[in-house]
Structure formats: C-alpha cells, structure tokens
C-alpha cells in the first residue's frame, strides 16, 4: 500500500504541452505512472510523445478515465485549472505551480472543501509512492519502497531528509509534499491520517517550517489520533521575524509561527524533533530499532 498515488493512478496533466509540464510529465511516465492525457486549451487532438492532448479536462476524463490531475500551468491560470479538474470529477489534484495569489487559493480551498476533490499543494513537489507512481517533480531515483511515510512543506529539504533516511536503510511508503504556501489544499493532519490508516507505513516523518500553526495543530492531532511513531523536523530557527524565507508561507508574523514554538508544541505531545536532518534519521533509526 501507499497513500494518494499508486498503480491505480490515471494521470492527466494540465499544461502537458509546456516546457516544464512535458519534462516532468514524461519523467513521471518513465517512472511507471499511468499518464493518460494532457490538457491544453486549443491543442486538443495533438499528442506529446503519444499521450493524447485534450482541450478540456472534462473531455480528457470522458475519453481516458483519468482520476488524478497534475497542474503545471502559470500562476494566474492555476486556480482556474484546479477548479476545472474538480468540476470534471477528478478525485485528486496535485498543483505544482508556485506564486498563485492567496485570494485565489482562499476561494479554491473553500469551494473544494464542499466537494469530494482533494488538493495537494500548490507550490509543492508532488507525491511519490516508490515503486508505484510518481506525480510531480520529486527525483525518484533517491527513494525506494519501504515503511516510512514522509510529509513535508518543502521540496529539497524533503530530498535531504529522505536521503539521510535512505542511507540508514529506510524506504518510503509515500512522500507527500504539501507545499510552501500560506493556504494549502491539504495540511499535515490530513496526510498523517492517511499514513496512520496505511498498512505499509510504520513510521511517519513530518517536515515543517516557520509560519502558520499547522505543526502545532498536528501535534495535538497526533497525540489524540495517531499511534504510529512520528518524528519531526522544523526548519527556520534562525529566521528573523517579518521576513518571507523563500516560501510565501514561511514567515514569522509578530511572535507567531516560530520554529521554537512548533518544536516545543510537538515535543510537549511526545513527538521527537530532530535538530538537524541527520538527527531526524538517527531518531528514526532508534525508533525503528525499538518498535518497527
């Protein structure tokens, strides 16, 4: 098992004819992901390396049975592309695009909550279930199948931590990048719940950063609803207040959203927090030796 994407994933890529969309879409296909369609308005009838392109997501779903969408369109068109995918009945939308206006995301998030579609991202590296499917831009060759579920707000930091884990012999059930924006489709709690329910996952690693309160809320949730071991990492202990640290969501507002507060909230609920990516892997190894 794994979460969100697997061999049953039938992927449609909005923006497949663009440079980034075709590069990563084809990468995902080479990994074994069932890439069934692309969508670019006005380019219906064309194909990208044999993958049919449609004018609308509705048409792509009707023709190919696509159930998962990856969004690779520029920020000003991305909210519309997410809404289109949801309207076409897609169950899972993964939005890679960075720089979507936050008011667009407020409307999209509020709308999606009222229906069955789940959104991952935006501003995220996507989802990898090693050995099964890759939807996004995660460099899959670093990761093998295993029992660690990894959820993160950051891309490269995920690779760093995943790699440290790999060096200690861990593989992954799934790696889920939830994105660095202030308003994300899914937050830690929802992904941790998926890992809790997933039989393959025996250990959960969450990788947070400054800004917002999602890590604090996850700490409360883990204490009440999760019995699998959880190890955490928080980036941004040295970040000054009021400065956006790369990710739109990585900002300490006044005294809120500090790494210190997040680490303390997690530790108060019994979640061990590694102070460096290496330490996260060491803690994981220690826990796995004892319980897994």
């Amino acid at each position, binding site marked *: 098992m794994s979460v969100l994407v697997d061999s049953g994933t039938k992927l449609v890529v909005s923006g497949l004819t663009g440079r980034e969309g075709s590069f990563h879409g084809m990468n995902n296909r080479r990994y074994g992901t069932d890439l069934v369609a692309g969508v670019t308005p006005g380019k219906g009838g064309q194909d990208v390396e044999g993958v049919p392109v449609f004018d609308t997501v509705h048409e792509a779903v009707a023709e190919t049975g696509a159930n998962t969408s990856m969004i690779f369109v520029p*920020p*000003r068109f991305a909210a519309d592309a997410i809404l289109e995918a949801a309207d076409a009945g897609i169950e899972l939308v993964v939005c890679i695009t960075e*720089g*979507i*206006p*936050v*008011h*667009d995301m*407020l*409307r999209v*998030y*509020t*709308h999606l909550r009222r229906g069955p579609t789940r959104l991952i991202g935006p501003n995220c*590296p996507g989802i990898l279930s090693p050995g099964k499917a890759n939807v996004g*831009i*995660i*460099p899959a060759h*670093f990761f093998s199948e295993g029992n660690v579920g990894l959820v*993160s*707000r*950051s*891309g*490269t*930091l*995920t*690779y*760093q931590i995943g*790699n440290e884990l790999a060096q200690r012999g861990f593989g992954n059930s799934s790696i889920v990048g939830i994105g*660095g924006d*202030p*308003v994300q489709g899914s937050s830690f709690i929802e992904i941790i719940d998926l890992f809790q329910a997933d039989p393959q996952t025996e250990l959960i690693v969450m*990788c947070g*950063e400054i*800004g*917002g*309160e*999602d890590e604090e*809320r996850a700490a409360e949730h883990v204490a009440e609803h999760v019995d699998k071991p959880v190890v955490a*990492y928080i*980036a*941004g*202990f*040295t*970040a*000054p207040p009021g*400065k*956006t*640290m*790369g*990710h*739109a*969501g*990585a900002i300490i507002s*006044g*005294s809120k959203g500090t*790494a210190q507060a997040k680490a303390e909230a997690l530790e108060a609920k019994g979640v061990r927090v590694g*102070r*460096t*990516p*290496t330490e996260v892997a060491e803690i994981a190894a220690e826990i796995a030796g004892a319980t897994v």
Partner: protein
Amino acid sequence: MDLLEYQGKQLFRAHGVPVPDGRPAATVEEAVEAADELGYPVVVKAQVLIGGRGKAGGIKVAGDRSEVEAHAGAILGMDIRGLTVHELYVERASEIAEEYYAAILLDRTAKKPMAMLSRMGGMDVEEIAATDPNAIVRIHVDPLLGFSDFHGRRLAFEAGIAGDVVRPVSVVLAKLYEAFAEEDAVLVEVNPLLVTADREVVALDAKMTVDGNALYRHPDTATFRDVSAEDPQERMAKERGLTFVKLDGDIGILGNGAGLVMSTLDVVAQAGGHPANFLDAGGGSKAEAIVDAVEVILSNRNVRAVLFNIFGGITRCDEVARGLVTAFGQLDVKVPFVVRLDGTNDEEGRRILAEANLPNVTVEKTMDGAAARVVELARSAEAVS
C-alpha cells in the same frame, strides 16, 4: 508587500473608507505647501514601514506654518528603529472622541478571512489582547460569500462600541473588507479607527499588506514599491531574480530550495556560526544564476566565508560547479568557500571542482560536516583580521 500609511489610505479612499484629508511630502517645502492647502492644525507623520512611529517622535501636531517647518525638518532623515524617514504625510488634524481598532486579515489556520473589532483602539493589538482578551471580537468570513451586513452588526454590538456609531462603523468594516478582497490584501489594519468630536468615523491610520503574487492584477499598487527604502543588497538580489534575505552574521549561504536553505542556516547556527544571508538559488539553478548569487553574497563586506549547500534534485550539481568555476574566473574572490554537493550529478560536480582546483574552496560530503568547516574558516578569518 507592506504599504506606507499614505499608500494604504489612497486605496482606502478608492473603496470609500473615510480618511482625513492629507498630502504626501518629501521635503520641508512640500510639507509647508501641503499644510497651507489643508488648513491648520495639521499632523506631520513619518512614512516608514514600522510600528511605534509616535513614540519615536515621528508624528507631530503643527498649529502653524513655522511648526510644520520645524517638525518636517526634524522628522525627515530621522532614524526610527533602524529605518530612515524619506517621506512625510501631512494630514488635517482630527478631534478624537473614541479610538477603536479594526482589521481584516487572512487567518491561515482557518484558511478564511477574519474580521476584527475592538473598542480599545490606539494601543497595539497584542497589548489589547494582553489587557483584556475579551475586548477583541473576531469573526470569520466565507471568501465565496463575502462580507454581509450581519458581520458588521455582530462585530459592532459584540465589541460594545458606542450605540450611535454602530451603523457607520459597520459600514466602514464592509468597505475595509471590500478593500481587502479587491486589492488582494493579506492584512488591512486601522488603529485607531476614530470617532471624531462630530461623531464621524474615520480611519486615522492605515496598515496594509498586499499579496506580491497578485501585483499583476494591480499595476498601480505595484508602483508603490519603494526601492530607496530597500536594503541595497536585497535590491541587487531581487533585480537578479534571486530569493534573498539579509541577516547580520558573517557566513554567506547559498542553497537550492527554501526549506533546505532555512535548514542550512539552522545547522550553521548550531555549529556556532552566524549566517550573513538566506539565498535560495532555486530549483534547477543554472550556472549564470550561481555567478549572480556569488556576486550578491560577496557584496556584503561582513562575509568572511561562504557555504554552498546543494542537494540536487532538478538542480544538477555539475551546473552548480560550473557556475562556481565561472564566478571565480569573473570575480575577485578573497574569502574561503565550502561546497557540499549531493544528489543529481554530484560526482560530476565534485570532479569539475577538483579539476578547476580553485583556491580556497573546500569540498565536503555532508551538510553537518560542511557547516562545521565553514564556521571554523570564518573564525580563523576573524582571528586574522
């Protein structure tokens, strides 16, 4: 992007939020001219993006022309908590009967806009919360439905404001929400929201933060960006399309990906070092971007050593290595570099660096090892200087 008071008030006016009449001024002469047009008394206000202007002496009432001259002269060029005052706002003075607090902001946790009102204005919102947590009323607004009249009524009645201004305050709140939504703001704060002696409701201050990702929809707001107030190094980085934040230490940092760079700063700090900057060269960093980045990092004279921490995913380590070799060819590099290359094409990257045999460049395999090494190098450079 944070807006200055007078810029926020310009947007307030456009959405019908009442504000006192005022004019921006960049010189004493302009301030006097503005005051003469407005009529006395006026308030001369420093325009800087930081709180506590009043306490620092940056807001003064002037009863006549000579007082405007004196205050404008004193405030222009003044340092307010590290920021120099380049601009003033001259405004008609108001007679204060009541001071309230009003705000519309993005509540990230609820993922909804939140409207706030308190009858205890004039002090910092965190101070209000500390004095009397019940004095702040908060209501979430559905972004798809927008602000209804009942939101305004609930806020006004529950905050316990004066009965005769419940209606006008509710109207102002609805207009503030309109400004928040239509200007793509993440924060609109009015403190104080004033009731004048004539029982008129006006926004005496305006604090507004707009979403930089939405500026393409607001070309006029985009021109508000004040490049003269920006740190020159941060400006240089922005012009080159680099994500950069200046810090106060002596170790220059470059990495790829925001999370990894934040983590690098932390690991360097844990090793006893002090980072001089945050610099995310981005996913897929190309050689030219690396040359630009090195130039930006070294433009800070405090930098004694530099750490490159790259975990190649989309970014290829050989590209980064080529960029570094090019940078050393183009720039006069005097400080030591520690380079950690891991991930995509890391062996090729390390081979390129070994062949180039750059002076003062150490290659490390791990992040922790690289951090320890750069801290050591910065310390020995400090001992020498």
